[in-house]
């Protein structure tokens, strides 16, 4: 076997190795990577910075992959020399490694413009996972960040830093943002969008110096002005890493020169990716690397014939909510230009057509059509007959038609070069049903990720058991998955809904996200958040359940369903006094007074003299009990006493969705503990604690969390589960969906079997929340505002001028 040494553990190198592995094994492969990680998707670093993805989610090839393919991976070793005569490479760890064939995939580095003071503490490039981690570490509300460079990477960095809480200014040398991808009009729309998000954009500024003692304090421009900063990201462009190519004596211009077979000037040395120059072009995007890798793999394994003839350049800005796409050459001379602009919606489209073919396209604000244009560019399609529909496709009857209309040879994933036909084949022949299976099977979607929507459409249309595994965001107003958002709110110490919406959302919010955020903040800060009733559903503004006629229902707390003659008399008196249209025994062993006017609520509560039963909210409802050992001849445990104690313990707290509980004294289960969110089932000598049961829209038998001896232990286990559910479930996710989603094994591992410190943490936060909780009906005597319950009154009928 020949020895293949690959210098560079990045996307290009490993994509190429993957292609090489498809041929007959003929190499013993060694890979050098100067970063200390396995191969990851560099394109997705901006998603990591923006909190949309975790670092481990962007790994492409796991350690297991290297092992399985018997690749000797040397991470953290930088190759510093090549000896083409001895055919060896030298690492900075002193190692000398011989090769038969050498593949240079050294990529590129951030280009550092001639600016004084780049060595100050607080100046970063944005190229690696380590850079990204350090940027996140240094970000926060106190951070004033300046991004030098208004290209793709600079803008993605800017938004990421802003999401991490920084105040961000983008400084760009040119007169428009992304001038390589956008014309002036497109650039202006983008400026407006970025500024609308709260990112300051300074155009036409040449940065002269970075000032500060040891740390960055200020960025100074050539015109004498400047901005204060304590974090600077330089994203002014990239430069191919060609040093090894030069040391190996290869022909090097801007990049290492390769021909259409991807050969360099040395027959035993090959190069691929951002470090190469092909037909005068050095590519800085992901699609060309894959195409080059395929050709190189054929050449290097002796299967000559494949040719690389260049790639249609396309770029898509990966900022959630900012749609920018550019492809081809929209500036080519002699082309017809077709434009559309809607300044109100921030949509701008420009298409350049030459000789009946698409030459280039710019899309800002609406990129839903980008794959159609890419297809035309890649296939050099004749679009003369589509002239009237270039900016908008003819309306399709249904959403699925779009993918149905694509031909099998049409490219879906431009980065890896996967066609619709390949995906369909994978679905039919390999039983692919999910995006991750599709990634594994075809590698589609593993590049820039912009084809995810299209792949999902295809799966949805073709795969028999399609599972949508896209992480659900709360809603379009705050486009983050809830677990990510919880992390952000916690780390950024945000305490009010409006603040969250302004920094991470559209500044407005809606009836979906506002209650969700309200819950999240209450839970995260254990009740010490800035409560905003405008973000709450009416039930949580007036602590009663709105009915179909706009009146409310009132359910006082009757712990464990045990009441007294006095309480019953007061309830009866209230029903008389306020002419309550219906008094009903609920399924929760409580009494419901229906048809109360909002304005009467405080008086009703005062007359009842009982606390709120929280029957109107996503919170702790009740504990249903049986009579247990008190009276029942079968009872093995005091389920009534335990139930009342349990209700006292959890009442007044809020949860992702309602929480209903029950305690039963024996397995006859009279109070239906096995279909409650948390149930205690008395057995001889102890309790079973069961969780995740339901008998509502869904019916589910609860899972056994644990079996314990004492009531105290049962309540402790319940408490761990309760707080774990509060902290980890999505808003409006009932325990039965939550337990089902995680699996009871994981729930056990994270609660009752968790390390001491973890359990102590859950219990501390529970105790903190409980200490701040109070009976919501106290607001009847001390309203949050004078009109919380009372309507406005006409002051007079005076006719004003």
């Amino acid at each position, binding site marked *: 076997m020949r020895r293949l040494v690959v210098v560079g553990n990045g996307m290009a190198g490993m994509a190429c190795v993957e292609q090489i592995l498809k041929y007959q094994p003929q190499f013993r492969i060694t890979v050098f990577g100067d970063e200390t990680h396995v191969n990851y998707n560099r394109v997705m670093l901006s998603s990591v910075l923006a909190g949309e993805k975790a670092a481990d989610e962007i790994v492409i090839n796991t350690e297991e992959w290297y092992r399985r393919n018997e690749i000797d991976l040397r991470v953290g070793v930088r190759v510093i020399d090549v000896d083409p005569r001895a055919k060896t490479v030298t690492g900075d760890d002193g190692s000398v490694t011989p090769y038969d064939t050498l593949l240079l995939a050294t990529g590129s580095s951030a280009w550092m413009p001639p600016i004084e003071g780049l060595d100050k503490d607080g100046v970063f490039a944005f190229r690696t996972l380590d850079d990204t981690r350090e940027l996140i570490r240094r970000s926060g509300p106190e951070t004033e960040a300046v991004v030098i460079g208004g290209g793709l990477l600079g803008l993605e960095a800017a938004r990421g830093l802003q999401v991490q809480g920084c105040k961000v200014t983008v400084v760009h040398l040119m007169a428009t943002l992304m001038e390589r991808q956008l014309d002036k009009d497109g650039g202006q729309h983008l400026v407006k969008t970025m500024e609308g998000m709260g990112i300051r954009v300074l155009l036409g500024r040449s940065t002269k110096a970075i000032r500060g003692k040891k740390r960055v304090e200020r960025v100074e421009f050539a015109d004498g002005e400047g901005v204060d900063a304590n974090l600077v990201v330089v994203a002014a462009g990239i430069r191919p890493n060609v040093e090894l190519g030069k040391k190996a004596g290869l022909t090097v211009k801007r990049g290492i020169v390769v021909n259409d077979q991807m050969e360099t000037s040395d027959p035993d040395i090959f190069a691929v990716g951002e470090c190469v120059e092909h037909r005068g072009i050095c590519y800085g995007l992901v699609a060309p690397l894959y195409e080059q890798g395929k050709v190189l793999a054929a050449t290097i394994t002796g299967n000559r014939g494949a040719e690389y003839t260049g790639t249609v350049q396309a770029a898509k800005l990966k900022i959630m909510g900012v749609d920018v796409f550019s492809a081809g050459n929209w500036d080519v001379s002699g082309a017809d230009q077709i434009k559309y602009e809607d300044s109100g919606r921030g949509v701008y489209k420009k298409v350049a057509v030459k000789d009946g073919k698409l030459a280039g396209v710019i899309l800002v604000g609406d990129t839903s059509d980008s794959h159609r244009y890419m297809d035309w560019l890649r296939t050099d399609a004749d679009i003369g007959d589509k002239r009237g529909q270039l900016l908008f496709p003819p309306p399709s009857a249904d959403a699925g038609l779009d993918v149905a209309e694509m031909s099998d040879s049409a490219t879906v994933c431009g980065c890896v070069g996967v066609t619709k036909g390949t995906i369909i084949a994978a679905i039919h022949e390999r039983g692919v049903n999910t995006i991750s299976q599709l990634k594994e099977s075809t590698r589609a979607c593993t590049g820039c990720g912009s084809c995810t929507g299209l792949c999902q459409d295809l799966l949805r249309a073709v795969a028999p058991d399609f599972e949508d595994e896209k992480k659900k965001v709360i809603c379009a107003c705050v486009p983050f998955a809830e677990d990510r958002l919880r992390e952000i709110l916690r780390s950024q110490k945000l305490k009010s809904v409006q603040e969250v919406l302004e920094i991470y959302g559209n500044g*407005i919010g809606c009836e979906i996200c506002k209650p969700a955020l309200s819950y999240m903040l209450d839970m995260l800060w254990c009740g010490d958040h800035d409560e905003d009733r405008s973000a709450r559903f009416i039930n949580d503004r007036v602590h009663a359940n709105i009915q179909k006629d*706009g009146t409310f229902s009132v359910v006082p707390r009757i712990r464990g369903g045990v009441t007294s003659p006095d309480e019953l008399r007061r309830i009866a008196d209230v029903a008389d006094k306020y002419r309550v249209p219906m008094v009903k025994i609920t399924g929760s062993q409580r009494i419901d007074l229906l048809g109360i006017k909002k304005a009467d609520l405080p008086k009703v509560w005062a007359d009842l003299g009982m606390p709120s039963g929280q029957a109107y909210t996503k919170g702790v409802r009740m504990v249903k009990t049986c009579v247990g050992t008190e009276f029942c001849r079968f009872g093995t445990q005091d389920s009534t006493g335990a139930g009342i104690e349990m209700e006292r313990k959890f009442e007044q707290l809020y949860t992702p969705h309602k929480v209903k509980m029950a305690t039963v004294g024996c397995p006859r289960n009279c109070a239906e503990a096995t279909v409650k969110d948390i149930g205690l089932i008395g057995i001889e000598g102890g309790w079973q604690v069961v969780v995740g049961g339901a008998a509502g829209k869904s019916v589910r038998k609860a899972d056994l969390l644990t079996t314990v001896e004492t009531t105290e232990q049962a309540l402790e286990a319940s408490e761990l589960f309760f707080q774990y559910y509060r902290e980890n479930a999505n808003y409006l996710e009932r325990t039965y969906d939550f337990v089902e989603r995680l699996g009871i094994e994981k729930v056990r591992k994270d609660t009752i079997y968790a390390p001491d410190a973890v359990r102590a943490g859950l219990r501390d936060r529970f105790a903190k929340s409980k200490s701040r909780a109070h009976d919501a009906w106290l607001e009847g005597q001390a309203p949050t505002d004078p009109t919380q319950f009372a309507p406005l009154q*006409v002051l007079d009928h005076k006719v*004003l001028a």
Partner: protein
Amino acid sequence: MSEGTRSVRQPDHHWIRVGTCDQIPPRQGRAVAIGDRELAIFNLGDRFFATDNRCPHKGGPLCDGIVTGVSAVCPLHAWKINLADGRVERPQSAEHCVATYAVRVDDGVIAVSVPL
């Protein structure tokens, strides 16, 4: 005078004073009865709006809805009503409309213009 939605006085309407700005917390609505009519008055921070307090769907109290932008979402079945023009924004197929009323604010007092 300022901050109203439409403050041009219509000849067959008159202005009725219904309360002070600080009686309605930002991004919330409150009901007010004027004769047989019940109106919902909304405080959008920089502007006030007034509509009938009945959702055209099933008569839900719009004043109790969550405000999103210049719309309120009915608490009963989540119909979304534009407060400026009374249009039903969701469901889109609904052809109903909610009556809106001009609002003006003088020295912190809210007045609405209702038909005589």
